[in-house]
């Protein structure tokens, strides 16, 4: 229900290429599905993937042919409306984040990711961004690592040592107060 199609469908820049790539991709998958068990029997392991891939090829062909007929949308530019620089930059940031997550550990990499992306998207003073980043990181850490007990990559930060140090410190304080 989200998109109400106008009377004459227009096509966005890159739509034709995207549909063409879908046709190519589906054809490749069709060939791969055929290689599983060929057309040996209708109940073979390859039959269902082959049927799905065939439907994909057909449906993507129909979608591609429709884009050939529809006129280009006026005043819509790919770089501005479809793939603006902000999306590309954030995608790159996410990519870097997931690469370093395992080696640097959750705390360091998430701190860097949050700080850079919030600074870039929210554009306030460095101090504001720093406060927001630290606060949200602490909340996420407490909720997911400590309450939900989710295993997060440790990386180079000796997290367990720090946690046990804090624990023993709290124990000492409690004992001392009693």
């Amino acid at each position: 229900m989200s998109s109400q199609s106008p009377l004459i469908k227009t096509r966005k820049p890159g739509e034709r290429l995207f549909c063409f790539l879908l046709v190519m991709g589906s054809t490749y998958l069709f060939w791969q599905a055929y290689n599983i068990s060929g057309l040996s029997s209708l109940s073979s392991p390859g039959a269902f993937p082959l049927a799905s891939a065939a439907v994909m090829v057909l449906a993507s062909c129909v979608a591609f042919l429709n884009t050939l007929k529809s006129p280009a949308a006026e005043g819509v530019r790919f770089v501005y409306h479809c793939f603006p620089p902000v999306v590309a930059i954030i995608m790159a940031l996410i990519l870097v984040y997931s690469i370093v997550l395992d080696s640097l550990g959750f705390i360091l990499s998430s701190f860097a990711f949050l700080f850079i992306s919030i600074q870039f998207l929210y554009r306030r003073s460095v101090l504001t961004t720093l406060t927001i980043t630290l606060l949200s990181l602490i909340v996420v850490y407490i909720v997911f690592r400590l309450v939900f007990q989710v295993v997060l990559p440790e990386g180079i930060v000796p997290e367990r040592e720090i946690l046990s140090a804090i624990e023993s410190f709290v124990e000492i304080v409690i004992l001392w107060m009693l």
Partner: protein
Amino acid sequence: MDALNYFAMSWLSPELLGLTALGTFLGIYVGAIPGLSVTMAVSILISFTFSWDVNYALCLMVGVYMGGVYGGSRTAILLNIPGAPSAIATALDGYPLAKKGLAGEAIGLSTVMSVVGGFVGIIVLALAAPTVSEFAITFQPRDYMMLGVLGIMLVGSLSGSSLARGIFAGALGLLIGTVGLDPMTAEERFTYGVVELWDGINPVAVMIGMFGISEALHQLHHMNKAVVKQKISRIIPKWSDVKKYMPLSLQTSFIGVIVGALPGTGGDIAALMAYDHAKRVTKKPKVPFGEGAKEGLIAPEAANNAAVGGAYIPMLTLGIPGDAVTAVFIGALFIHGLNPGPLLLVEQPHMFWFTVGNLTLANIFVLIFGLTGIKLFSKIVECPKGVLIPLIFLLSIVGAYAINNAVTDIWWMLAFGVFGYFMRLYAFPVGPVILGVILSSLTDENWRRAILSERGSVSDLFINLFHSPLSTVLFSVIVLILFTQSPIWTKWLRAKIFRPSH
């Protein structure tokens, strides 16, 4: 007696009670904050909760679902931005009411009617599910296969701009679901000799990518939308109003349950149909529809919450999800070792009554949280997107990692996230992909069982199909959808409609 015990389980245990409350509370905010969706939240929650005891996880997720469907209405009323698709119809009359300074009253009334709708949905679920389940035991493998195909086709045809794109998305999902070792013969499918692929692509990674990452990437397009604040007055609705609108609310609740129970249609369509119904039955509205008619606010709100109970009927009795949210939910049930389907009520009746009790509890929490905490609410909803979006990315990535503590799942999630971004951009619906992934093994196995039981003969399968009334109906519906969406039909229809005018 047993049923009552299971029903009360989440009411009596303090932990379960607390988790349901927390889930409902979170759900209201998730539903209300534009940019966060229930589908997104439940996908991410699955990854964090799958090591939990199933009851705990279910309490949290049921709460989020129930709260989320309701929460969308608040932003629809206050900001004219539906927080969730099911609140689109709510904004039509809710926002004009808020502009007149009646925001508090509108929120109060919509809360009460949502809860009424919720209860109607739950009662119908409790009464109808056992019967449907008994009937479902007689289903043949071919019926299951056709139900699966039908569900994907309906979601595909209703959610996108064209049937071809919806079908493509559904078929892609089915194909993604077949990756890995074939469950019947252990033959490798699309694994390219990689051992890690034997278990297939984790559906949770696909879900988080398609609903978390791709959705958040899309939000980057609308970063600088100004928000108009509304004053909020008294929030507890007038008793006379509640009494006056109760008949309409009950009528639209039943519309909601039925629409919710049909495969392929969920709360959003239920709400729009209920709005239309209210328009037709209200002969003399005090205020015209679209300018702040209370009828136009109540009808969709009662219907979309009633649809939750309705959606649970096919989900628990047939294992067939009605829409993307229930598809994600079925994924969660599978991950927790439950097998939604006709045998669920026979083998694990406690799970069914537990869910019914839990839904009821969550509904009560909607009432409590709905009528309180409005000050805090307006603060949280103003959370700037520049902060919110990086946090969604963070949770998505950590969530994908948490499924198996493997970086591979992050890569899958990112790949599907970027692909989903372009799919959304070019009007390919992403819901059918998830539906396909979830229904893939069910459809595959039942297709093969059906064809094996006919000794591999398609013609026998086809002939026997018409001996069973159920199979005949299902088959006709599938053919009908395909036909009515094809260009030949539209051309014929156009010719027929336009001829008299010439």
